[in-house]
């Protein structure tokens, strides 16, 4: 070490600048590559802003103010993989009488009248190579809020958890759920 420090006083300012100039792009490039790699590793499930929906459905009104249980509309959640969105028909049970003059409800009415499905923008999704089944999670007593956040207070639903692999695993580990890759990966 001494030998190396002995070299230092000989470095002039000019040399230091040159060294700096020569190495900075190198270091910056390396850091950039590293950053990209890190991003790629972590990517695939970061929290996203709320997407724009074809109909401005307000969860805070339904799940919050009206305190409708989640399962009332998302019927599949307790029994199968997808929580499922309700059919237009189900919306119309209430909205054929409730707030029919609202412009958003009229959008819904239009779908009902023309027999066209509503293409909701998907908020939560896991990649194609992941199998997520709602039913066992509900069975295990995991509350909807655990993963979806406090939807009852959201006007627009957005993803609040990263739902990346590590996120899932952390929860599985805490709850002694299976950590076998094949549990989730298909």
């Amino acid at each position, binding site marked *: 070490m001494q030998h190396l420090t002995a070299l230092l006083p000989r470095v002039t300012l000019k040399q230091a600048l040159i060294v700096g100039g020569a190495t900075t792009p190198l270091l910056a490039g390396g850091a950039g590559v590293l950053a990209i790699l890190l991003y790629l590793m972590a990517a695939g499930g970061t929290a996203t802003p709320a997407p724009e929906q074809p109909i401005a459905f307000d969860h805070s009104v339904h799940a919050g103010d009206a305190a409708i249980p989640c399962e009332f509309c998302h019927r599949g959640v307790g*029994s199968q993989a997808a929580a499922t969105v309700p059919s237009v028909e189900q919306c119309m049970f209430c909205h054929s009488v409730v707030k029919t003059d609202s412009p958003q409800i009229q959008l819904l009415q239009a779908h009902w009248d023309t027999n066209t499905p509503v293409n909701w923008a998907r908020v939560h999704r896991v990649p194609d190579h992941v*199998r997520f089944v709602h039913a*066992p999670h509900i*069975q295990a007593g995991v509350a909807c809020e655990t993963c979806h956040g406090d939807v009852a207070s959201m006007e627009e639903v957005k993803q609040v958890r990263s739902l990346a692999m590590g996120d899932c695993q952390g929860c599985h580990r805490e709850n002694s759920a299976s950590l*076998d*890759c*094949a549990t989730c*990966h*298909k």
Partner: protein
Amino acid sequence: MSSSANEAASRASAVSSMGQTIPTDAEVGHPEGVRWGMVVDLDRCTGCQACVVACQAENNIALNEEQRVLERRAKTWIRIERYWEGEFPNAKARFIPVLCQHCGNAPCETVCPVWATYHNNEGLNVQVYNRCIGTRFCANGCPYSVRYFNFWNPEWPEPMNNQLNPDVTVRTKGIIEKCTFCIQRINRVQVTAKTEGREIRSGEVQPACAQSCPTSALVFCDLNDPESAPAQLAEAEAGRSYTLLEHFGTDPGIIYLKKVDPHAELEEDSHAPVETHA
């Protein structure tokens, strides 16, 4: 062994010629657990290819177009190998379905640098597609050559993509794929059983190949479940059972039952050409 349960549990090692030195996962990991396996009765197998197409359909296997067959890049997770014996008029064709053997001691698992293939605690040799980086080391290590590499992104011309099974990933280019014992079906049954608060029933899980096999030559089972019919069958037919390429010591999860040929002379010279008289 005191109980037949234990016997069944260790059968896989018993049939392995190196069983003494290589413990099965049943012995080391989960003596009470599940070990999925299959009993293949070669005396029933007719080579009719029903399992091959069933597998293609269930697992979103890419179309094996002619060019791919010519390049030997066709993918068939289960394939019927046909071997000849003798010459006309005493030629005999022997069929054997070869699929991933889900070895208890799998050569492919140790060599994967990224754990894309590993052994799970149900005796399955699992391939995690998204983890795979495509070194193909596992395919080299596999003595059964049942691992297939994706040289292309598979394509299904519209509207053929409608038939794709949503429970199975469509594998992209650059990764290895292989028989999963229809793990999506196993998982589905497991989730169903869990939801209904019960154990999986014996014979409830059926991979596509075994389900379609007209002669029931392929029987899927839990090798550790002494109650399962195939396990009992393998027990009863112990004299006929063998595992493929035993000397590799891979402890396969697939037990083959020998083909019965009443005219076979099992002496040394049984395969000498017989005088023709045509």
